[in-house]
């Protein structure tokens, strides 16, 4: 590099959905933007379960779905409650989801992000791959640039956007995240991409063409820990994974790979995977801290977006959409700051305001107590799923016992195992935590 320090309008750290959204929109407005990415290409270090929502993505790149590498459009959403030997399944399919422009897609992040990187470059931003940001460059309490791992790799800019993911060392070093993420505010998820022929997937999941299905699984899928398991259909593979709170994995001494194998071998899950061949094994941390876990979002010369800002709505498995929209809001705040030539904390706090006025904040507020509630109520991942599945089995078993007697048996069995007032409190609490 030259003797003169490299100067940009904006440095984006991390080529994930949040960072690339911000970079794309800012470059389109003619700003001089650089994106620093540790991987070989955007996407090579990125992991998610696999559902991308159309509406928020179109807020960044309108019409993206006509050309981006997508897997399948989701027409059916299933929720399963598992016990050791059984599953209670709920499913919803709507013809509307099979119509263009579709509602959501399954994607393989490495492929989609590579494409998005090309759009970011075409918009005029510079993407520097294979480069790690080591630390922020500060002048007093102002962030004025970043130090990269390359020789003479100091870069300067009016604003740094920290899109460096859940581990966000940058937000930590600048002091926006004061404490480490507690073990009960982060879930560890592991996933396998399992290859299967197209026709097999379409037969097994009763879909045609590029239609897709998502399945979320609870309770026994994560050995009764707070978390979920999932199966998403791709074109010629399945994304199969599960995740649970680190605190509970540690407490029970569970290894993530064992948890995944346990789920894959469940009698209701295994037939869907039969004949499949694992192609890749991935892991990712999911920030579950929600509203209470959010770091400070902006300071002088820096904004924090996406996973780095803990923007995940685990109830609705939304994360990448919140990431992209936070990237958009960061871009809006930077554009305004640029217009006023004011990159102070007060000026950039416009980003906080945009986020607070949006559905992102409202949704995180709505579910602010949910994680804590379920963490302290393990019966929703053990006792109640068992009750539900056993009640179904009892009612469906034809054995000469009258239906009324069966109902009574189910009712008294439940009451014997948990006091009615406890159950009333459980469900009132659960309802309160998500209502």
């Amino acid at each position, binding site marked *: 590099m030259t003797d003169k320090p490299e100067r940009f309008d904006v440095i984006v750290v991390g080529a994930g959905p949040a960072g690339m959204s911000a970079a794309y929109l800012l470059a389109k407005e003619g700003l001089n933007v650089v994106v620093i990415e*540790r*991987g*070989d290409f955007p*996407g*090579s*270090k*990125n*992991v*998610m379960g696999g559902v991308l929502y159309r509406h928020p993505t179109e807020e960044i790149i309108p019409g993206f779905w006509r050309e981006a590498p997508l897997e399948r459009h989701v027409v059916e959403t299933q929720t399963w409650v598992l016990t050791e030997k059984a599953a209670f399944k709920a499913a919803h399919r709507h013809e509307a989801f099979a119509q263009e422009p579709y509602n959501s897609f399954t994607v*393989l*992040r*490495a*492929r*989609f*992000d590579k494409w998005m990187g090309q759009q970011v470059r075409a918009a005029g931003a510079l993407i520097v*791959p*294979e*480069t*790690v940001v080591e630390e922020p460059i500060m002048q007093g309490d102002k962030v004025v640039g970043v130090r*990269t*791992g390359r020789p003479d790799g100091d870069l300067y800019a009016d604003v740094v956007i920290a899109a460096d993911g*859940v*581990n966000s*060392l940058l937000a930590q070093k600048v002091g926006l995240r004061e404490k*480490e*993420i507690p*073990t009960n505010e*982060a879930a*560890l998820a*592991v996933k*396998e*991409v*399992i290859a299967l022929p197209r026709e097999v997937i379409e037969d097994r999941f009763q879909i045609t063409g590029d239609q897709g299905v998502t399945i979320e699984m609870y309770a026994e899928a994560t050995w009764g820990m707070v978390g979920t398991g999932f199966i998403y259909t791709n074109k010629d*593979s399945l*994304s199969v994974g599960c995740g649970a709170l*680190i605190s509970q*994995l*540690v407490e029970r*001494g*569970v*290894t*993530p*790979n064992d948890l995944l*194998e346990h789920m*894959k*071998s469940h009698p209701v899950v*295994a037939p869907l*995977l*039969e*004949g*499949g*061949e*694992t*192609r*890749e*094994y*991935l*892991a*990712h*941390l999911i920030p579950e801290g929600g509203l209470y876990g959010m770091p400070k979002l902006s300071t002088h010369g820096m904004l924090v977006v996406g996973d780095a800002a803990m923007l995940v709505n685990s109830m609705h498995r939304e994360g990448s959409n919140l990431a992209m929209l936070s990237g958009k809001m960061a871009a809006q705040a930077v554009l305004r700051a640029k217009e006023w030539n004011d990159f102070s904390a007060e000026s950039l706090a416009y980003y906080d305001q945009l986020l607070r006025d949006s559905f992102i904040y409202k949704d995180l507020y709505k579910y602010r107590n949910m994680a804590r509630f379920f963490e302290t109520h393990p019966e929703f991942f053990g006792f109640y799923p068992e009750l539900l599945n056993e009640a179904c089995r009892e009612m469906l078993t034809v054995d000469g016992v009258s239906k009324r007697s069966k109902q009574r048996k189910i009712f008294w069995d439940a009451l014997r195992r948990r006091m009615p007032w406890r159950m009333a409190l459980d469900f009132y609490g659960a309802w309160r935590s998500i209502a």
Partner: protein
Amino acid sequence: MKKLTLEQKLFLNGFRPDRESHLAIIDQEKCRKCELRQCTYICPVNTYRWENDQITVFFEGCLECGACRIACQDCQNLEWRYPRGGFGVNYRTG
């Protein structure tokens, strides 16, 4: 489907391992006193192993998720950083 061992799964992933580890135990003495040694089971790829009365770090298969960093925060006994630019895991699907 055929069950693969963790080692077999890691063969499927693309890696460009650096020569030196990006992860390091700061003080093995602390690990000796550590009751849970949660790093030995929380890691999705079994990076940390208790061998010969100390933790050995097999960083080559690291998926860079950060779970160990969060799990070891009470002791703060882990020097955790990302691999140097261009090194580490290279996902094809993501």
